[in-house]
Each structure stands twice: as structure tokens, then as C-alpha cells.
């Protein structure tokens, strides 16, 4: 049977077992009929003939059963024999096997590692009971459905009790809190939740009890907490933990429960370490918005709702039913619920937000992330394909014999593929190890910089295993099936006689299969090198960015009097004392306070427009910061026009309504005029009404983000009228050099202690270190590191591939070289001849790679910080590196060729 027919029959059998069965039925039936006819021909009557046939035929079912057994027996036997044979072949070539497995381990490992991360973020089901039933419930403007806002507690309670859509509706929000352990206070993220939160998720606690309805009541203030499973693990897996206490924001909380293992709420991987009842919400310090408002106010929109939909309820039905409730609630409370309706949306796995976040952008990013290692695997597979071809050529005699004695081409292809697949399986197994090691390393480094628990298991789950298997199969197709198909051509003997496909004229030889494979490898690896070059360049730019403020000789400290339980009056006193004391330390040039810090955990956006502009147009979005008078001086932000704040404007008491804006804001608000002296209107921020302010100064624009690196306008208002407990202290210091700075930091810590012993210091480091430890920079640098590794692997594989083929070519053409030299060609001629082909292969590979690299550059420029689509520096460096190593890979075999002794060569073969 021909290979194609066999494959077709196998496919049919797998696709449609019924048809094969039908065929067998027909065959058995036909046999039976013929038996009867034969018996009748021997003179029996129809009945006698049938009876005799039935006796001879022990029973059709039994026969069919035996046939099925025989078929499976053969299939299994063949497969086992192929595997045994392949294992023997590979064992006999340990060098080849080791290189192949290593190559595949790198290629598959890179893919599995990336896939593991994508899996953890986007695919792996969350630890929630029936996650498909859980949805976010959002309050949106009827006229502008894109505009969503959070819920107030009274609205939440009304909706919880009156809706017909959810079997259970929970409310929560995240709050940054200070968790004190011994001397150290850490910023952690706490999930402040309703009492039915864990019940709505359908995930019972690991130990202890849920929050009670009394603890949920706004302003109840019962200091109880539930900790995450990993918090419990990190603290010695103390079975007695429930009942013990911990300090949150300077208050003593009693632990009442431990959440289930692996529970991360509605987001993937990132989990809060602490869960607190809604009743503590108004007391939590550091809370960014809505300070001083009770959760019981219907106008205080703080809560994000998660509901478990009734089974089989569609979004359309749910929205329709919710809109009825919304109309009723608007009637009952027209002020707060004007124009609001409620809708459900699938929850984002990547964040918690009052509005629906589509996870749409992330699959695109995931595809980009996955495509990089895919290229590495492709290079690895092409490399192996060449090795298989070379090995195949050596085995062509064996293959020719098998073909000659009628071993079907399919059998040979199958045998060679089994060999390839066995290699891929070993490579995949090693790749799993590489991947779990690599991703664990990545996660460990991430854990050290985010204020969350990172819940990640490096043990592969079923999806990761399936993906790894898929990588094995795909690479086998490239490096196993294709060469096997070529090698098993029936005219393989002809190939042998004429010296294979390396024979023939220059062009045909140049574009021989092996050379084309190497060209593909070279071009792909140029593309990878360019990609990693762009990533590295982006990281370097980010590390050397000039953000518009000074990064050298700057120190930032973060304190929060509210974490020690101090109220505003005491807090003001502390800040005043701190400013005075720190200013007088020798070596400190300037001190100021600021609410948000560039590259910090959060920024506050506010809408601004020229005062008196009553148009309904979109206001200019600006970053909002609260600072003291010396801020611009301390940070080295140039004052372009007007003045900075006066000391009188930054103390408590009567608020002078002034503001400083940056150049960008000035240009946007007053494109053709002097901003100083004009008034701007700051749209209502949460917890504070809209207000008009006079612009007294314009300063330089600063950059506060690396990712999404677009500059944003800035608006500064004076500290004083605007008290915030969680302020950053900026200091400009004289200390230069690492040691002096470390000494300075020690002094500062001591001085802060002197001011108030109980004041927690949340952060104290140079501004440079603060930037280096930011998530933004981490992402950029980690990307560069990963791509750097991929680029290095790609380069290595391509060069090994090129070298291998050059060596092979020289070995293959030894006889020809011998003849040429016997006829008078010099060593130099020979070397030139061999080098020329290598040069051509490299040149063509690089030319194709350049096109790929340019195309990729366009894609990457959209994702990376400060990168141009065509970066001449990166491109030329990548080309140069590849050319140099490629030349080396060509030169060594060429040198060997030049040393061929004609006498030896002529006797060769």
C-alpha cells in the first residue's frame, strides 16, 4: 500500500471507525455468501449449504473481534519496534543525540517558559468555583456607557437585596496599607471585602471564619483580618495563627482566618496578602481617595462589585433585569443615582477596576511574547533538520537497501520520524526543566518589587504539558518529517551516484537544500539579534533617561504618620519638624515634600481647563501632585516662568488658591499666551469639589513613566491646604559616591527616628535606586534580559549550523578538491573557492534577515520605550556580529580544505 493510501486509511479509521467496521461487516458477509454458493455448487440444497457454512464459520462476531485484535496488535508492534530501533540508533550516536537534545531543550524550554507565564496570566482557571458564572457588575452612565463609576455602600446593599440576577453579590476594593512586622513597616495591598466575598467566590477559607455582617457595617471598625495562604506559609505555617494579632496602619488587628491555598481573588497570579472587612474601610490610612467620608454615604463611590450570576443567565438578560432595578433606584435616590444603569461584564484577570477592562490588548502582547521563543525553536529545528539530512546522507545506503527490498516509503518516513520525535521528547523533557527553572527565576525577581503576593507554581499544569507536547510535535515536523520525506525519495540511489544535491553548477549548489536551511537560520537569527538589540537599547535608554528632574544626589524617603495612628494635627507637626531638622543636617542642600513620586506606585490624574471655559469639551488630563515650596529646587526641575510656591502658601490655614503647571500643560491650556496669572479650573477629584486656581509659575515637564512613555501634563498644588498623610520627602544631598550616600542614608534614618520614634519609614533610598527598583524599569530590563538570552541562543545555533554545513561540504568535496589541486589549483585558490560559497550563503541569509528585522522593528517600536523602527546602530551591530562569527565558521573549514593532499584525496571514497 502506498504511503499516502496508508495514511488515508489510518485517517479514515481514526476519523470514522464506523466505516472500517462497516467494511469488515461487508467482507465477512460476502465471505459467508460465497461459502454457501460454493457448498451449493457441490450439490447441497440451499438450507444444507447454509448450515454447513455456519458450522465452518464459528461466528461472525468472534471473527470480527479477532480481526480487530490483529489490527491493533500490528499497529502497536510496529510502533514499539520503531521506538526500539530509534533508541538503538540514537544510542549509537551519543554525540549527535546530546547536541540535538540540548538544542531542542533550549528551543522548547524557551517556548515552555514563555507559555507558562502567559498561561498563568491569561489561561489557567482561577481558583474560583464555576468561574464562568462570576462577573463584574458596573455602574455606567446611560448617556455614555463607556463611563463607569464605583458603587456606594448603600447602593451595593440595595442592589444585593433587590436584584434578580445574582445568587450572590460581593463588594470589595484594594487599599494600600502599612503592615508592621517587628521594626519594619511594609506597604502591602489589602483587599477590603464584604462579608460574603469568599462565599460569592465559592472558595471556603483554609482555616478560621469569614467576616460577619456586623464587621462589614460601615465604620464598624472591628479590627479583624484574614490573611492569604502564602502569608501564612511565609510566617512559618503557624497552625495557631488565627487568634494572633498583626499591626496594620498602626492598629492591632486579630487574624480570624486564612484564605484557601492558591486563591488570588479575581486576578491571576497577583493576590492581596490581607483581607479586611468593609467596616474598617474608612479607617484605613494611605487610602488614596475619599478620606474623611464614611462608607455609609450614598454619594461615596468606593466599591467594586463581583456577582455570581444565576446559572445559564446571559449577559443580555442580566443587563435587562438590572436596568429595571437601576430605574427604581434612580427614582428612590435621584441625586446620587441620576442617569446610572447597571451592567455585567466578564472580570479582567489582570486588574481590579471600577470599570470593565477588556483583556484585549494582552493577547496581542502574549502573541508577541510567544513569537520570540518560537523563532528560537524554528532556528533550532532548522539546525537539526540539517543535521538529520547530513546523517541521512550517511545512512542513505541503509535506506536505499530498505527501499530496494520493497520497504514502503511510508515505513521509512515513519521510522525516521520516530527517531526525530524521540529526540523531541527528550528535548521537551529537558526543556520543561529549563522552563520551570527560568520562569521561577523570573517570578522570584518580580516578587521582590511588587507589593503583592505572587502566586505562581512552576510545576507544569496540563496546559503547559500539552503546549510542550505541541512544541515537540511541531519541531519534529520541521526537523524530522521533512528530511525524512526528502531522504526516502525512491530515486535516492540516483542521488548517491551523482553525489547528491551538492553536485551541479554554482547556482544549484549555492541553493542546495542544506545551504538554504543555513540561510534561513542566519536570517532568522539576524532578526532575533535585532529584536534583542532593540530591547537592550530600550533598557539602556530607560536606564539613562533624562526625566526632566535630577536623578543624581537625590534621596527619597517615604513616611506616613497615619500608620502610627497619628491624626492630621499631629501629622502636620511631624512634617514640619522633619523639614526643619533634615534641612539643618550638614550635607543636605534642600528638602521638600511631595505626595507622588515619579516611577512610584501610583499617580493621580485630574482634568484641568482654563477657568471660565464652560464648554463641555474634554479637559486636559494632568498628573496631580501636592508639594512644598522647595520641591522644584530640590528635584532640579527648572522654573521657566513666574515663581514657585511661597512658604506662606504651603502651611496650613487659609488656602491661597494657587497652582504651578508644567510647560506641557501651559501649552495645552493656553496655546498662544502667557499662562502665568491666568486661572485654571481643576475638575472635581474624588472627595473634593472642583476649584479655580491661579497659575503662578510654569516649570519644565517631567517624565513619570517608562512604559506608556508619553509625557503627561503636570499640575502642582501646595501642601498645606491639601494635607496628605502619605508624603514622600525629597532631599538634595551633597554626598557623592556610593559610600557617602550610604552614610547619608544612615544619618537620615537616625534623624527621622529622633523626630518621632514610632514613625514608620516605608522607603529610604536614593532616587536612582528608587527608579532601578520600579516595576517599569523591571519590565524593560527583564524584557531585555530575556531577549538577550534568546538572541544569544539564536546566534549560537545559526553559527553552529553554518559551521556544520561548511565542514560537511568540504568533506563531501574532498575528491573534487584533490583533482583541482592535482591539476594545479593552489591552496589559496581552494580556500577562496570554499570561502566564496560560505560568503554567498552568509550574504543571502543576512539580506533576507535584514528585511525580516526591518519588519519586526516596526512592530516592536510600538511596544518598546523610546525605540525607532529603524535603528541603524542596532542593525549594523547585529549584522557585524553575525558576519564576523559567520566568517569564522566559514574560514576554519576552508583552511582545512586548502590543506588537502591531492594524493590522499584521490584515494578518498
Amino acid at each position: 500500500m502506498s504511503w499516502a493510501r496508508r495514511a488515508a486509511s489510518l485517517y479514515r479509521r481514526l476519523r470514522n471507525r464506523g466505516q472500517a467496521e462497516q467494511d469488515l461487516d461487508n467482507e465477512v458477509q460476502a465471505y459467508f455468501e460465497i461459502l454457501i454458493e460454493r457448498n451449493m455448487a457441490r450439490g447441497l440444497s440451499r438450507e444444507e449449504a447454509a448450515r454447513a457454512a455456519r458450522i465452518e464459520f464459528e461466528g461472525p462476531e468472534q471473527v470480527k473481534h479477532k480481526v480487530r485484535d490483529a489490527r491493533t496488535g500490528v499497529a502497536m508492534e510496529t510502533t514499539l519496534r520503531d521506538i526500539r530501533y530509534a533508541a538503538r540508533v540514537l544510542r549509537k550516536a551519543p554525540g549527535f543525540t546530546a547536541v540535538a537534545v540540548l538544542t531542542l531543550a533550549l528551543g522548547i524550554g524557551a517556548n515552555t517558559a514563555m507559555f507558562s507565564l502567559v498561561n498563568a496570566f491569561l489561561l489557567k482557571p482561577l481558583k474560583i468555583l464555576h468561574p464562568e458564572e462570576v462577573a463584574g457588575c458596573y455602574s455606567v452612565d446611560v448617556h455614555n456607557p463607556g463611563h463607569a463609576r464605583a458603587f456606594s455602600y448603600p447602593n451595593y446593599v440595595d442592589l444585593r437585596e433587590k436584584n434578580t440576577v445574582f445568587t450572590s453579590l460581593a463588594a470589595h476594593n484594594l487599599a494600600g496599607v502599612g503592615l508592621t512586622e517587628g521594626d519594619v513597616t511594609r506597604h502591602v495591598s489589602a483587599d477590603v471585602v464584604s462579608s460574603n466575598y469568599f462565599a460569592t467566590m465559592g472558595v471556603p477559607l483554609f482555616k478560621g471564619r469569614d467576616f460577619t455582617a456586623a464587621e462589614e457595617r460601615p465604620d464598624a471598625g472591628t479590627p479583624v483580618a484574614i490573611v492569604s495562604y502564602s502569608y501564612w506559609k511565609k510566617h512559618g505555617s503557624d497552625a495557631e495563627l488565627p487568634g494572633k494579632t498583626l499591626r496594620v496602619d498602626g492598629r492591632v488587628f486579630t487574624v480570624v482566618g486564612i484564605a484557601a491555598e492558591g486563591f488570588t481573588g479575581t486576578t491571576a497570579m497577583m493576590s492581596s496578602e490581607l483581607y479586611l472587612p468593609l467596616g474598617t474601610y474608612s479607617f484605613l490610612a494611605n487610602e488614596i481617595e475619599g478620606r474623611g467620608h464614611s462608607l455609609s454615604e450614598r454619594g461615596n463611590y468606593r466599591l467594586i462589585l463581583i456577582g455570581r450570576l444565576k446559572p445559564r443567565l446571559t449577559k443580555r438578560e442580566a443587563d435587562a433585569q438590572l436596568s429595571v432595578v437601576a430605574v427604581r433606584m434612580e427614582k428612590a435616590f435621584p441625586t446620587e443615582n441620576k442617569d446610572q444603569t447597571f451592567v455585567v461584564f466578564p472580570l479582567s484577570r489582570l486588574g481590579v477596576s471600577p470599570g470593565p477592562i477588556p483583556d484585549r490588548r494582552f493577547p496581542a502582547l502574549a502573541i508577541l511574547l510567544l513569537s520570540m521563543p518560537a523563532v528560537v525553536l524554528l532556528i533550532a529545528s532548522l539546525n537539526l533538520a540539517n543535521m538529520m539530512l547530513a546523517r541521512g546522507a550517511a545512512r542513505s545506503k541503509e535506506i536505499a537497501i530498505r527501499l530496494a527490498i520493497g520497504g514502503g516509503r511510508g515505513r521509512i518516513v515513519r521510522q525516521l520520524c520516530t527517531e526525530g520525535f524521540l529526540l523531541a521528547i527528550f528535548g521537551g523533557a529537558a526543556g520543561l526543566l529549563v522552563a520551570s527553572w527560568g520562569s521561577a527565576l523570573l517570578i522570584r525577581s518580580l516578587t521582590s518589587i511588587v507589593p503583592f503576593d505572587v502566586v505562581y507554581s512552576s510545576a507544569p499544569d496540563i496546559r503547559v504539558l500539552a503546549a510542550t507536547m505541541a512544541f515537540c510535535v511541531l519541531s519534529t515536523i520541521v526537523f524530522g518529517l521533512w528530511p525524512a520525506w526528502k531522504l526516502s525519495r525512491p530515486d535516492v540511489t540516483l542521488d548517491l551516484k551523482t553525489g547528491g544535491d551538492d553536485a551541479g553548477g554554482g547556482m544549484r549548489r549555492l541553493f542546495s537544500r542544506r545551504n538554504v536551511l543555513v540561510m534561513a537560520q542566519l536570517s532568522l537569527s539576524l532578526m532575533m539579534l535585532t529584536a534583542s538589540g532593540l530591547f537592550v537599547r530600550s533598557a539602556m535608554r530607560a536606564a539613562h533617561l533624562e526625566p526632566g528632574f535630577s536623578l543624581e544626589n537625590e534621596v527619597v524617603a517615604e513616611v506616613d504618620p497615619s500608620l502610627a495612628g497619628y491624626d492630621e494635627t499631629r501629622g502636620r507637626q511631624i512634617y514640619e519638624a522633619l523639614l526643619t531638622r533634615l534641612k539643618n543636617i550638614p550635607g543636605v542642600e534642600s528638602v521638600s515634600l511631595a505626595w507622588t513620586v515619579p516611577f512610584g506606585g501610583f499617580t493621580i490624574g485630574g482634568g484641568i481647563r482654563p477657568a471660565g471655559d464652560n464648554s463641555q469639551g474634554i479637559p486636559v488630563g494632568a498628573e496631580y501632585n501636592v508639594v512644598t515650596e522647595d520641591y522644584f529646587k530640590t528635584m532640579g526641575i527648572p522654573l521657566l516662568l513666574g515663581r514657585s510656591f511661597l512658604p506662606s502658601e504651603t502651611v496650613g490655614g487659609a488656602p491661597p488658591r494657587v497652582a504651578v503647571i508644567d510647560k506641557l500643560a501651559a501649552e495645552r491650556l493656553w496655546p498662544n499666551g502667557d499662562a502665568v496669572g491666568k486661572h485654571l479650573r481643576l475638575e472635581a477629584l474624588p472627595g473634593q469639589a472642583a476649584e479655580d486656581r491661579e497659575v503662578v509659575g510654569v516649570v519644565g515637564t517631567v517624565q513619570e513613566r517608562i512604559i506608556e512613555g508619553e509625557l503627561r501634563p503636570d499640575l502642582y498644588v501646595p501642601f498645606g491646604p491639601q494635607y496628605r498623610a502619605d508624603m514622600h520627602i525629597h532631599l538634595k544631598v551633597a554626598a557623592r559616591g556610593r559610600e557617602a550616600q550610604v552614610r547619608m542614608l544612615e544619618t537620615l534614618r537616625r534623624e527621622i527616628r529622633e523626630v518621632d520614634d514610632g514613625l514608620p519609614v516605608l522607603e529610604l533610598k536614593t532616587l536612582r535606586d528608587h527608579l532601578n527598583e520600579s516595576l517599569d524599569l523591571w519590565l524593560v530590563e527583564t524584557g531585555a534580559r530575556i531577549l538577550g538570552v534568546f538572541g544569544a541562543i539564536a546566534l549560537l545555533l545559526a553559527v553552529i549550523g553554518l559551521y556544520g554545513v561548511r565542514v560537511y561540504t568540504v568533506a563531501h568535496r574532498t575528491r573534487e578538491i584533490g583533482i583541482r589541486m592535482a591539476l594545479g589549483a593552489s591552496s589559496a585558490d581552494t580556500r577562496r573557492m570554499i570561502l566564496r560559497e560560505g560568503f554567498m550563503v552568509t550574504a543571502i541569509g543576512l539580506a533576507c534577515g535584514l528585511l525580516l528585522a526591518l519588519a519586526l522593528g516596526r512592530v516592536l517600536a510600538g511596544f518598546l520605550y523610546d525605540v525607532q523602527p529603524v535603528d541603524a546602530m542596532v542593525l549594523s551591530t547585529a549584522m557585524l556580529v553575525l558576519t564576523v562569527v559567520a566568517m569564522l565558521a566559514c574560514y576554519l573549514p576552508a583552511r582545512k580544505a586548502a590543506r588537502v593532499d591531492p594524493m590522499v584525496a584521490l584515494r578518498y571514497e
Partner: protein
Amino acid sequence: MAKSADLLQGTLDLLILRTLEFRSLHGVGIADRIEQVTRGVFIVGPGSLFPALHRLAEHGWIEGQWGELENGRRAKFYALTASGRAQLAKEKRNWRRVFTAMNQVLGEEA
């Protein structure tokens, strides 16, 4: 199923391949032919014949195709493939070796 003599393992395969060496036959034809040529020593029933045919087909040594008898009845005809021919040659050699060896053993005994 062999009634008169137990078939040696693999003998049936050889018999079938040999039977199909010069022409294709349907199942009953193969059974009859074997019985006829061995003068009734080997009578192959469908319980042995069917699994053997399908095993050989699965190895790719024979190939079955539906065709018609003279009387218009449809039957599956089996024919040898190229690799089946190679396999037959191999099994013939094997059999001769075994046969010679067995004869020597028996001859010495006699």
C-alpha cells in the same frame, strides 16, 4: 483454523503470501486454494484467515480491494504488494533454513 495439522506460527502468513504470489484472490478462494495445494493438510477457517489477512494488510504486505465475481457478487480481493513480495522472499528463505535444520535433526534421529 487448521483441522488436520496445527499450523506453525507464521506458517499461515507464508501460505497466504505464497498463494497470492501470482494472482489476487478473495477470502474463500485463498482458503480453498490452500486446502487444494496442501491436499487437505491445511484447512483454513475464517476464524484464522480473517485476522491473518488483516494483519498482513496492516503490515502493508497485501492490499484488499472490492471487486466482482463472475456471477456479479461483490467480494474483497487481496493482492501482494511490493513489500509483500520482499517479505515472501524473506520468509521463503527462513522457511527453507528451518526446514533443512529440522530435517537434519530428524534424519540424525532415524
